[in-house]
């Protein structure tokens, strides 16, 4: 492990609970500790990840802050690169990055290519214009038929929308899906009525309502399962070690209460998605969960 205990933790995110813990840091594989920093792909997806401002290179947001804190516990420098959401998994596969943040949902498809450390669960909602005729709750997928739904390219929600569309097809109806390349464009599309609803996670929905007061409201969608989300890691020889280290770091943050502080900062109405324990999801690490089912 690294012996350099003074190694800088992320400047912005670090709090009292993110000092280096040597025992946990020792779990990191040498390929990471070698140059004292980890390369993190971050997809701007407020409020999970917000792009850095004012000369800083460190993004903010609950997912990013958590990562920065975890890096602090592990005693490595958090070296962020902002990338588009749909570039995350490919970037990991190309081993361009050691890990990635961005409210990345864990699912079986993704587990074929990458591994995760659970850090949160996310509930999805429809965001609709305030004057929308969509009812306050859409119970089943078939209740959503006939709508046109905007989703973000590469997101889990895009996957759920696709399966809802299949359900509608089976019921002899249809559901229109529009896939946009960034969340800002989805928002504009909803605001202008180009799509009826934006299927997105709770955090994003909260932020959107906050930034555009009076324009939007949320609609509950119980037919969409609650998603585990987490830090993503490439599948390679070091996966077992690095996921173990990060799981330990997150667990440490949960224990010290730092985890609660960070999420409280970004979820105004109280965070409904907190987890008790960071688990490893992987198809290559023995002992890890291999499926979300």
């Amino acid at each position, binding site marked *: 492990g690294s012996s350099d205990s003074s190694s800088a933790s992320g400047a912005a995110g670090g709090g009292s609970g993110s000092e280096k813990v040597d025992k946990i840091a020792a779990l990191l594989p040498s390929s990471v500790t070698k140059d004292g920093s980890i390369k993190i792909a971050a997809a701007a997806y407020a409020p999970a990840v917000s792009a850095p401002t004012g000369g800083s290179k460190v993004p903010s947001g609950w997912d990013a802050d958590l990562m920065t804190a975890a890096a602090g516990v592990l005693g490595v420098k958090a070296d962020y690169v902002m990338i588009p959401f749909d570039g995350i998994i*490919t970037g990991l596969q190309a081993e361009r990055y050691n890990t990635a943040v961005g409210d990345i949902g864990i699912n079986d498809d*993704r587990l074929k290519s990458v591994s995760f450390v659970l850090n949160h669960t996310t509930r999805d909602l429809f965001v609709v214009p305030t004057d929308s005729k969509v009812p306050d709750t859409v119970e089943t997928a078939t209740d959503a038929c006939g709508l046109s739904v905007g989703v973000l390219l*590469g997101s889990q929600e*895009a996957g759920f929308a*696709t399966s809802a569309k299949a359900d509608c097809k089976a019921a002899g109806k249809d559901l229109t899906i529009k*896939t946009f390349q960034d969340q800002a464009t989805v928002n*504009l*599309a909803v605001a202008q009525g180009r799509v009826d609803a934006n299927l997105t996670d709770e955090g994003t929905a909260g932020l959107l309502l906050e930034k555009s007061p009076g324009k939007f409201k949320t609609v509950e969608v119980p037919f969409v399962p609650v998603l585990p989300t987490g830090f993503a890691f490439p599948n390679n020889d070091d996966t077992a070690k690095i996921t173990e280290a990060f799981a330990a770091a997150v667990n440490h943050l949960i224990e010290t209460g730092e985890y609660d502080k960070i999420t409280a900062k970004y979820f105004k109405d109280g965070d409904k998605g907190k987890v008790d324990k960071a688990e490893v999801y992987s198809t290559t690490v023995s002992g890890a969960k291999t499926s979300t089912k």
Partner: protein
Amino acid sequence: MTSQAAARGTSSHERLAAQDKPPTDVVQLKHPLRIASAALVIFTAVAGGYSVVTNENFQWDRVAFYAFNPQILAGLRSTLILTVAAVTMGLVLGIILATFRISQNRVLSGVAGLYLWFFRGTPLLIQLIFWFNFAALYPRLGISIPFGGPELVGASTNDVLTVWFVALLGLTLNEAAYMAEIIRGGLLAVPKQQTEAAQALGMSQFLLFRRVILPQALRVIIPPTGNQVIGMLKYSSLVSIIALPDLLYSAQLIYSQNFETIPLLIVVSLWYLLCTSILTVIQRRVEKYYGRGTASAPTPKAAKALRKDKARLSEVPA
């Protein structure tokens, strides 16, 4: 001094004596470098090809699997429709703009200039986002009394600016700016004398433009237009920003879910290469056709001037 210059050029040669017959056996020059470089290039190509074929990261089986995927084919169709429609409409609008630009009327020419400046000066991507979100600026489109007067006829912007409409609008307006410059060049390339000859025959402005100027300008216009079509085929992929699933975006939609990025990009590249190759062949054909009658060039004098008046008896000046 003269011998010095000669010595420099020819010092190592075997000089023939005045009455020696020069040898007749010729030893051709070998080009070892040329052969070596060719060999190197061929070797590199073969090694690269071998590596591409055998590297399993390329996942050729997945490439084959996706090549005729219905979503991909639908995307290809969208791309082709967009390209053809945008180029055609861009051509028409471009002709209008070009005639405005070279018109005597300062206002028209100024307006066309402003148009070209704006549409050539901003990225197509931004133009597309703008049109797509035009409803955020003007929720209703219609004709109304300006400066705050009431609306006469109108409709909701989003009802008018559907995704396809926006895509075509953006691509066309952009393409028209480039086509206008190409067409202007073509029109200016037709000699002024052609206009005069047509006028002298009593032809009206419109007739002489349509029957004399335009057909000749086309010869100059066609080759760069071919390039524009090929360019449009590729740049039309920018419409993915407004969620119109063209060829590339259809692939992105698939790989963003299943992460088979590389094979899907290969599929898309192959389709693009196929289309551009076909277009290139068509372009050559069309160019040939428009060269008809002018291959042996209508410049009456230029070439002949050099052959002319060779035979002239003259006394040398004293």
